[in-house]
């Protein structure tokens, strides 16, 4: 039943300029659940997602998506990057951005056809901003922009979704829209891995949690793992040595 596991990571280490960002990370995530990835700033949460998708070179480790490499199962994965990662003044409208989620399916050099536009429209409708389809993206509020990104991932109809802080600085309506979408995903047996910052809402939104601070502090069902003790380990000062070592390595690298 190996292929039932949406995401299995083992021994994953990633380093930027030889400064380790995540050390020896390993976990297997259960299918059909909503998984929160929680940890302090600089804990390597975004890096983890990027390394899973081969966007960042790995120093070591193995990633399996439904039992195969990411490359082979790319189509089953939807990605929602951080909102700040792009230039929102870019001359495209909301519908255009959502259609980008279909570019792989459309194929190289072929034009976007009506059915793709319709699919993108439906995705915008699902996140509740179909009315803004023709708006230039800088004219959207932060929450609406976040929903455009969500729609772009939804339009691919993936099985595993990787989301980088979708709840960061969004309005209440967007937050509700995202929660509803997550609920729908869970119902249809899909899996979502969500980087999350707000500790208070973790038990409410997610049923599985990965506590990350350069390494996996703990992972498991929220009720077992999301304990004060574990949070203390994740956010507390216990890991300073690890940080100091990597900081020392970075300094050495710069002094060369």
């Amino acid at each position, binding site marked *: 039943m190996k292929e039932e596991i949406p995401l299995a990571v083992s021994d994953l280490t990633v380093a930027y300029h030889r400064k380790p960002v995540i050390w020896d990370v390993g976990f297997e995530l259960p299918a059909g659940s909503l998984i929160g990835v929680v940890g302090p700033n600089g804990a390597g949460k975004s890096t983890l997602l990027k390394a899973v998708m081969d966007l960042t070179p790995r120093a070591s480790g193995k990633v399996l998506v439904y039992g195969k490499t990411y*490359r082979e199962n790319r189509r089953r994965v939807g990605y929602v*990057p951080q909102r700040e990662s*792009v230039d929102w003044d870019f001359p*495209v409208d909301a519908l255009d951005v959502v259609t980008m989620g279909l*570019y*792989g399916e459309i194929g*190289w*050099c072929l034009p976007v056809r009506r059915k793709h536009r319709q699919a993108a429209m439906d995705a915008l409708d699902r996140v509740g901003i179909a009315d803004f389809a023709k708006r230039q993206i800088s004219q959207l509020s932060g929450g609406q922009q976040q929903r455009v990104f969500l729609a*772009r991932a939804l339009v691919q109809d993936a099985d595993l979704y990787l989301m980088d802080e979708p709840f960061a600085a969004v309005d209440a*309506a967007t937050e509700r829209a995202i929660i509803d979408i997550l609920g729908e995903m869970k119902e249809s047996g899909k899996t979502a891995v969500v980087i999350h910052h707000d500790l208070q809402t973790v038990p409410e939104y997610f049923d599985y949690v990965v506590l990350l601070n350069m390494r996996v502090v703990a992972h498991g069902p929220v009720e077992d793992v999301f304990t004060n003790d574990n949070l203390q380990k994740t956010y507390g000062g216990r890991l300073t040595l690890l940080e100091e070592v990597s900081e020392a390595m970075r300094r050495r690298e710069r002094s060369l």
Partner: protein
Amino acid sequence: MIRFRQIALIFMATTWMAGCVSLDASDEVPSTGNSLANQSISWPTWEQVRRVVLLQDYNTRVVVFGTTLLGCAAGIVGSFTLLRRRALMGDALSHATLPGICIAFLLATKMGYDGKSLSVLLLGATVSGILGMLTILWIRKTTQLKDDAALGAVLSVFFGAGVALLGIVQQVSGGHSAGLEAFIYGKTASMNVADAKTITMAAFGSIGLCLVFFKELKLLCFDEKFAGSRGFPVMFLDILLMMTVVVVTIVGLQAVGLVLMIALLVIPAAAARFWSDEMSNMAWISAGLGMVSGMLGAEFSAVFSRLPSGAMIVLICTAFFAISLIFGSKHGLLIRGLRRVRLNRRIDREHLLRAVYEKLESGQGEVGKGVSFNELMKKRSWSERRLRGSIRREQNAGLVSFEDQYVTLKAPGIAEASRLTRQHRLWELYLITHAEIAPSRVDREADMIEHVLDPDMIAELELLLDRAGQDVPASPHELTDSSVKAGVED
């Protein structure tokens, strides 16, 4: 939006070009062999102008055709590099071509070929241009220097080496090398049919690549991480884009010159951004502007034989940029000014309606007449002219009536005013209960925010404050005159 860097770039190019015009006008006088009395730029006869404009000379036709296509290609390629924030790479590339041109000339002459054959020179230019770009990438990868430093250093070093080599070339081969300087400022006069063919092929090639890979390049420019996650080869696309830049730049050297080539890559695209919020429209507009600039520039240069074509092309580009900056239908200064005026008028209306409403509500109006103008003047710190203008506009819109110095609300005005006042007070209540701002200050705080509240936010406010329905809550603070001022003095 167009960033400061791009504007600075355009400014640089324009000043350079102005410099080129004056240089060229004075420096080349002895070589033209005309009489000394002929030092100023001579005005062409009508006949000359007519021949150029109607493209009657075969030579002019060839040159104009070439530069027009070049402008078109540069416009399209430029809109991608602009959005990818790689605009300056083109500049480094073009400056880095000079040593290659000189070395190619020296080598070819030494080996007994015609050193001035365009294909040989452009081959040299390509090699050293790409070498320059690779050097930048290498510096960026291996040192801690940032992009701009790497770019500036490589650009000037290569260009300096080129200028030095140019001196050597002139010493070695004497008058035979005349014409190599044309690559610096551009000289279309030397363009022949074969050259125009090269330009045509290169232009169609790079335009074709951009069109075929339009959607992929757009994705690359907008969100490279997402492109990577979808399995698009980001590196390959980047190289593809840079290749089109290389091709356009190299064939543009002859017509526009290496110093100004960057202008043709940046200015049309930057100008087009003022007219469109849609990538493909922007690319087309940019291509169109590039085309027209290329055409007009070459014609000007043909009519006034002393004006270098590169400078003329860039000048005309810049004229288009200035026009776009002011009149651009999406982000031009005029349209933005107009939007601001509209916003201010909307705010004025909201202030006026609420002021009248509150005056009437607190019984300070006169029965059957409404609120007197003087009462209204006291209500806020607004100028008489502004208030009168606002009253006049709302009168025309049918929201208020103004008779005998008394303002009162008409039926649609009452509905609007109560809606606005309700919003204002909901926001005040929110500030008091949730943001813990003192009641005496909330009016001013609310005043700044209320104009941007959209229906979603209002719905949220209603939910938070548990106030469904349409009733206007009582003001949480005393309704004083000029409460805005009072808030400040508090």
